[in-house]
């Protein structure tokens, strides 16, 4: 109890009119001592978190999965293997993969410039990176239409093309790779590069053999996040793509049509579950990869 006594003494000395008697501030000493382990929250915390996650995430996911099988497994299979559904899914995956791949390269370059180069307005550019993420996606779609739409001021019209979908996806997923690579690059030991140079490696060899392997986990997890985000993207695509079936229609928009236009919630749920599965696989993939990277770092 000596630390608490010291506190009492300290407090009773502060007021000038303090009585000369024993410094007994029972008010402070009576404060109960928590028995919780340092850093832990105990069973209450675990319980709250479990309920919260169930309400917010697990139950809705379970509900949509259950709903998708309302007409039986055979019907589920029929719905998700319909030509339009399969086409939308394949297009979604391919265009998302492409966006992720481009992001992996360009995002790394952006992060590199932001970390290693000095130029005026750097902090402004740095702040700008998050804008596509913070922007409501429908606004993102509108901005793209304003520039590359029917009445494009630069004479480029991509509306209703697959290029438009890729463009929209690259716009909204820009921050992921940048933001995952940036901190790793900041922490990267510059002396490793100097050591590599002193051992005879050219700048290119140093980048390939030293820098890139150290950035690879961050690049891949950033790319995987942008892929996951792209697979589910709706708002920025829905206006500019025109949602042409077998051409520019992505799964998210297809689901929306099933639900709203065709009033077919069970089919919508079925396709949703497939998308859900894809996202889950990607997340598990990231985890497995990160774990592998952690083992030697």
């Amino acid at each position: 109890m000596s630390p608490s006594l010291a506190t009492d003494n300290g407090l009773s000395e502060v007021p000038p009119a303090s009585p000369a008697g024993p410094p007994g501030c029972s008010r402070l000493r009576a404060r109960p001592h928590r028995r919780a382990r340092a850093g832990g929250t105990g069973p209450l915390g675990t319980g709250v978190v479990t309920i919260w996650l169930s309400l917010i995430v697990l139950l809705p996911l379970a509900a949509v999965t259950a709903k998708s099988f309302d007409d039986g497994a055979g019907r589920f299979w029929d719905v998700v293997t319909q030509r339009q559904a399969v086409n939308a899914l394949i297009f979604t995956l391919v265009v998302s993969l492409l966006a992720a791949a481009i992001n992996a390269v360009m995002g790394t370059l952006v992060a590199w410039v932001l970390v290693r180069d000095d130029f005026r307005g750097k902090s402004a550019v740095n702040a700008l990176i998050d804008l596509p993420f913070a922007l409501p996606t429908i606004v993102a779609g509108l901005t793209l239409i304003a520039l590359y739409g029917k009445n494009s001021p630069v004479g480029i019209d991509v509306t209703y093309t697959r290029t438009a979908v890729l463009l929209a996806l690259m716009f909204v997923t820009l921050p992921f790779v940048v933001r995952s690579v940036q901190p790793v690059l900041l922490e990267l030991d510059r002396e490793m590069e100097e050591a590599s140079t002193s051992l005879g490696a050219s700048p290119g060899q140093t980048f390939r053999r030293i820098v890139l392997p150290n950035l690879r986990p961050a690049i891949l997890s950033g790319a995987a996040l942008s892929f996951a985000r792209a697979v589910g993207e709706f708002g920025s695509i829905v206006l500019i793509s025109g949602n042409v079936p077998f051409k520019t229609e992505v799964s998210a928009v297809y689901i929306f049509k099933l639900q709203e236009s065709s009033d077919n919630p069970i089919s919508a749920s079925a396709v949703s579950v497939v998308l859900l599965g894809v996202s889950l696989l990607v997340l598990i993939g990231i985890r497995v990869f990160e774990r592998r990277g952690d083992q030697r770092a």
Partner: protein
Amino acid sequence: MITVENVDKHYGDFHALKGIDLEIASGSLTALLGPSGSGKSTLLRVIAGLEVPTSGRVVLDGRDVTNLAPQQRGIGFVFQHYAAFKHMTVRDNVAFGLKIRKKPKAEIKEKTDELLRVVGLDGYQQRYPSQLSGGQRQRMALARALAIEPAVLLLDEPFGALDAQVRAELRTWLRRLHDEVHVTTVLVTHDQEEALDVADTIAVMDAGEIAQSGKPRDLYDAPSSDFVMSFLGPVSRLGEGLVRPHDLEVLLEARDGAREAQVVRVVHLGFEVRVELLLADGNGTSADGVGASEPVVAQITRAEAAALELSAGDIVWVREQLGTRGADGPKAAAA
């Protein structure tokens, strides 16, 4: 042989190196010793090519390398914080320079294994740097630098990040390694004990200039300035001059040139006894302390201390032992 000719280095307004001239003999182990900010690391990095001098020349074995990139200089560089390639095994770390040089696989393996044996890391080939201790990582870094058979080996505070015991072990080990390998080595350190322990030659640096260079013993016995003297071991200021603690004589009665002092503290350090003294005229401080009120320190042997029967509060007389300073003291009197 490393020749540094009239090298200047500016960082904006900061003049880091001021007209440095230095010759480092082939096969020697030279220490660049100085306080932080004295330019010793900058000088080492200029020799390595990791920094480009504002003016001046660097010549390695007769070859002007001033405008050569580091990878073309054939140097081995060891960093304070190891700069281990985290994503590679110990074997791949050491083999890196050889792989860059596209040596045959068998030769790389043989050479790597041999070097790991030399640095005492045999059997650690498959480990990652994160699985090694600091001392082991630095030995790996040394093996990596030696693998390319560099003309010169440059070490930037190589033991600075290690704890005292490992540091002492490693520097003894480095000295023995140097005696075997004979590669021209330059070591940057701020630790005078380390420099005195391992180096054949010491160059003491101060504020971007070389204050003095020479053999450790000459620097210790005949420092060219108060700065060099106070940097190469503890000193006390007694009146006008600086004096080393072990050059102070403690007497029980007034004698020629002795000053009256009061014993503040007597510390027994094994063989030696440290006596802290407050001069009666107040005209004495120990120069390594920041405050001027630091007591004068005298270092005497146990036997002397026993004979004097000193304890705190005693009044004694101190003077510099005659003939102990090589530079300005009368050397003849000592012999």
